[in-house]
Structure formats: C-alpha cells, structure tokens
C-alpha cells in the first residue's frame, strides 16, 4: 500500500532532512497510525528515536495530521490507514 509521509517544522531533521517520503507498506496487515508509527521507527528513522516517539506514541510537541486534518478528529492512533493517505508530522515552532 502506497502512502505519503511528510515531516516539517524540524521533524524532517530526523529523516535525512527530507520533508516528503513515498513509502510502500507491506500488505500483510491492517495498518493503523499506531502500527505505522512503529514501522517508521524501525524502517525510516535513522537515529534518536526518542526525539520522535515516547512510550510508543508520538512525542509531545509533534502534531499528527491525516490528509491535512488533526489526527484527533480521526481517533488518533486507531485510525486505519488507507492507500494514498498523506500522513504528516508537524513539529511545533516556537521561534519569533
């Protein structure tokens, strides 16, 4: 299943500074955001997983979006990922 992952607001620094990643998830299981997070940790994340995940969920300060909407509106980590979904991870900025 092909989906798009996006990282911005500084979260891309954990992923070789690349903001957009097309990834192909194995069709062996039903994917939720929860299982996707672990897949990202094991397959995409280069180092410092604690800057992305804490206690197997997204760390405080990163907003997760499902097709440009807050994941809270879709049941957070329970959401079942569909082909062509765009999942974004936005680190909040604090500078000014």
């Amino acid at each position, binding site marked *: 299943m092909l989906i798009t992952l996006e990282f911005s607001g500084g979260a891309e620094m954990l992923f070789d500074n690349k903001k957009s990643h097309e990834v192909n998830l194995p069709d062996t299981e039903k994917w939720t955001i929860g299982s996707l997070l672990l897949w990202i940790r094991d397959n995409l994340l280069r*180092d410092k997983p604690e800057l992305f995940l804490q206690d197997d969920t997204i760390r*405080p300060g990163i907003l997760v*979006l499902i097709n*440009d909407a*807050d994941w809270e*509106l879709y049941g957070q980590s329970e959401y079942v990922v569909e082909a062509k979904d765009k999942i974004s991870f936005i680190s909040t*900025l*604090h*500078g*000014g």
Partner: protein
Amino acid sequence: MNSHEKLSYINEIEKLKKELKDKNDLINQLNNSLNGDEKLPKVQSLDYSLNKEAISNLNNENILRYSRQLILPEIGVKGQLRLSNTSVLIVGAGGLGCPSAIYLAAAGIGTIGVVDYDEIELSNLHRQILHTESRTGLKKSASVAASCSNLNSSVKCIPYHTVLSSKNALELINQYDIIVDATDNVATRYLLNDAAVLCQKPLVSGSALKFEGQLTVYNYQNGPCFRCLFPKPPPPETVTNCSDGGVLGVVPGIIGSLQALEVIKIAIGLPDTFKQRLLLFDGLAGSFRNIGLRPRQKNCAVCGDDPSIKELIDYEQFCGAKADDKGKNLTILEQSQRISAKEFSEILKSKEKHLLIDVRSPVELEICDLGECLNIPIGSIEKEDQLKCIENTIKDNNINKVFVVCRKGNDSQIAVKFFQEKLTSLGICFQDIRGGLYAWQKSVDQSLPLY
C-alpha cells in the same frame, strides 16, 4: 632615564590622556546630537491603567486616512470605529511583534501595548524591522512604540519593559481585548495561553523558524487553546531557537503580518478566523497549508469543563526550560576535560601536535574558524563513519591531544563526552575549548566575527 626626563614623560602621558578624554566626550556629544531627533517613549509600569474612552465617530482626517479600508463593505465606518475602540497587547517586540504592531498601528487600532524585556542587538535587525541601527542597546518595547506612533500618532502605544511572568500576566492581559503571542520560547507560550484562557481573551499565536511559519487563533469562540493541542510540553532538547536554528527575516514578517490580519478580523467580528485551524507556511516550498484542528477539549487542563489549572503556575518548571531564547550554559565536563581559549592559543603558538575538531555545521565553519580542523557537525557525531574518521586521523598522525570547539561551548562538551566514551580504546584525552568561539573572541582575538 633621569628624573627630569621621567617627569616630562609623565606629564606628556597625562596631557594625552586628557586630550583623549576630551575627544571621547566630543564623540559622545556628536552622537547624542546625531540621534537627538529621536526620543523613545518612556516605558510604563504594569499598573498603568488604560484610559478607555469610547470613540463614537470618525473625524474628516480619519475618514481620509482610512478611506481605502473604509470603503470595504466588511469594514465600513462601523468596523473602523471598532478598530479604534480595540486594545491589543503584543507580547514580544521581535520578528513577529514588529510587523504585527506596525500593521495594527497603520490600520488604526486604538491601543497597542507592547511587552518585551530585551534590548536591541545588531543580530536582531534582519527580522525585527522596526528597530534601527541607531537604536541598538535601547529597549525593544519602546522602539516598537516609537515606530508605531511615528506612523500613526492617533494610536495609543504603551511599551512595557518587563518579563511577562506568572506574577504580572493576568493584571496586564485583563486590560486588553486581544492578545498577540509574538514570543520566542515554549514557557512563555504556555504562560500566555493559560493567562488568555483565565482572562477569557482571544490569543493570536504565531511562530517562525528557518523558512517555516505557523499561525493559529486560540481560545476564541469556543475553539481550542494551545493546551488542547499540546497538553504536554515538548522535551527541551527538541526545541530550537532562532539563534541556533536560524530564521529568514521575511518568514516572521509574513506570519506577523497575518497575526495583525487576524486581530483586525477578531476586532471587527469578521468570520473565518484561524480559530480551530492552523496555517503552515513553508517559505522554501512557497506553500501555505490550512489544517483543520480538533475542537476545544473537554478534558483540557485549563479550558476544559473541569480545569485543574485555575491560576498561573511555574512555567519554566513545567517546560523544563527558561522563558527566553537565549540558549543554555551547560557544564557537563570535569575541569580536567576542559581548556580555556587562552590556553589553546598557547598550544597553537607552540606548534604542539594536536587535532582540533570543530563541531559546528559546515555553513557556520564558512563564517569563521580557528584554523586547521576536522569538521564533524554535532548532529552527526554519532555516525560510524565520522568516528572512524577521527580514529584514523588520530592514528595516522600519532596524535595524543584532541580539542573540540563550537560556537558557545555547549555542543563541544557534549561531543567531548561522547568521543571520550566511544573512543576510550585510543587512550587519548579529549578536551573542549571552554566558551567556544565566543570565549576566543573575548580573550584571544577580537577580530573574530561573532554570530
């Protein structure tokens, strides 16, 4: 030298000293008259009370002045009067606060309060565009107030030169109608959010870093607050400030301008604000994205149905980070693992064999350096090939002393600790240059550029 000659030298020195002092006085005098045409307003104490006399009609001058926005049906005379009867508190007189304040002044907002504890530095001017070269060293709040008054003398501008804190925030915020979060750190953002919720004021929040900006309106018309989105603060090590991460001036310029727009919409009561929405601006990609956010959370600690936060708390403690963007001063190494800039300059002079590792980014290395070095950016010290590179350099050149330098002396300590652990087998001593390039500039070579 006989005593007579000595005396004449001493006299000569005294005479030159006096001349020098006279010339310095003259320079100061000339500087003062050069800048004398500009007097910044006095900063106000927090208990200064706003005189809110309602304005009920526009005079001819104001009609002409605001005519181009007055003829917009969404604004009209009614909207313009609302603007002139609205008071806005801008917290932060920096990259976001400057554009925000000046557009609000131009649009004829009645009262603009500006809070900032900081003074103007040269490195602020590329983005904090109301401050000027001649104002460096002066108070940012007063500078913004002066610029706004110059543009529109009918706007009441009130500068507060203070740190916004749990002690003073409520008193200040209570006096204003709309709050603009133009701050630069996590602790103040939580403080401002909670204060805005407790005082029931809309909070127009902006932020910017590098080429990216974000904008939201919190606590407005039953929409979410900052805590609804982020109940827990981010780990301090994940937060980057403008000084470390860099920022292009136009980016906060755009976000700050949009903050002014949101304030105007809220003041007039126009629909479609950024309540429950988040704007993501990416200046490099040239993209604006509009994100739908969650509604107000019933279980939110401050704006929920049964809030646990009923008064302001200690936000530095809550966030584990200081309420400024000045960066930290780490001390994680023993004294024996450190060397002063002066001592390192002696080693360079003596030509003693050593290896210098500079852990700044390549783009920083281009700005200035301390001579021959190995560049291993702090973000990649953990990479296998980088460690291998250090190991090979040490072995190939029979080196037994390694020094690590960075800009201010924090990253260099982290790197020394890491190298010492990972490369124990080499049996050599890693030391960091205490205070980094800043210390070098201060105690060894004043011509080194600071950034």
